């Protein structure tokens, strides 16, 4: 086990729900699972951003979403620019917000990096995260996205 429990995961569920509610004023559907144990088909969408942790935690927090969802979110925000760079910036900002909000629970000793955002192939996440990662599946309107929490408290294996 990685020292992260279901209560910890709820912090990320709350953070992602809160983000979508703030932007869209709508509730999202959420499901959580272990990434590999439940054979989740694919958690990787067109664009993925990750935050690397340091301090009292190690690992990464990922947010992955399709271009169509990010474009829709930008429309709601009133953004005129919706090119690929802006979509990458948006997926990074969402990863950053979810991770930053989690510090309310984990405290300042969970240090977070700037987001690294990239275009991703299907199943990319499964090749980079540990089997015991938690996945949070998000459904908003017809779109699906995912948050993968692959973190450990420092000193635990």
């Amino acid at each position: 086990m990685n020292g992260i429990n279901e209560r910890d995961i709820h912090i990320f569920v709350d953070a992602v729900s809160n983000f979508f509610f703030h932007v869209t004023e709508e509730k999202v559907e959420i499901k959580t699972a272990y990434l590999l144990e439940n054979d989740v088909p694919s958690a990787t969408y067109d664009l993925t951003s990750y935050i690397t942790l340091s301090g009292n935690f190690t690992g990464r927090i990922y947010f992955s979403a399709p271009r169509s969802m990010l474009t829709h979110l930008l429309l709601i925000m009133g953004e005129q620019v919706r090119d690929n760079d802006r979509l990458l910036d948006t997926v990074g900002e969402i990863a950053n917000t979810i991770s930053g909000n989690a510090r309310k629970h984990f405290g300042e000793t969970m240090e977070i990096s700037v987001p690294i955002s990239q275009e991703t192939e299907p199943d990319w996440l499964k090749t980079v995260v540990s089997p015991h990662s938690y996945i949070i599946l998000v459904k908003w309107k017809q779109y699906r996205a995912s948050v993968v929490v692959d973190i450990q408290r420092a000193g635990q294996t």
Partner: protein
Amino acid sequence: MKLLIVDDSALIRSRVARILNDPRLKSVQLLGMAKNGKEAIMLFLQHMPDLVTMDITMPEMDGIDCTEKMIEIHPDCNILVISALSDKATALKALKKGARGFLYKPFSDEDLIAAFLELTSP
């Protein structure tokens, strides 16, 4: 009032700039945007803004160090930190370095307008 926006996210920079179109903020004039702390200090020295929105997690120089430097240069500057870092310690650290306000991400347009009005009211 002259505003400098400091954030590594183009989305946030654009959003803050767009909110300035609200008639309640007609006294606030955008003078520049920076995507990290170093760039922000250069613009700060050139233009001496009265108001700064400041992200915390940024490459090159973070928002805490940047706030400290700006307050050393211009102690009366109003710095509003806008960050997703939701732990109390970070907000306290920023306020201790001289920031005048702290707004958590995600925020609504009204949240930001209210924060600006609070900082700019006499």
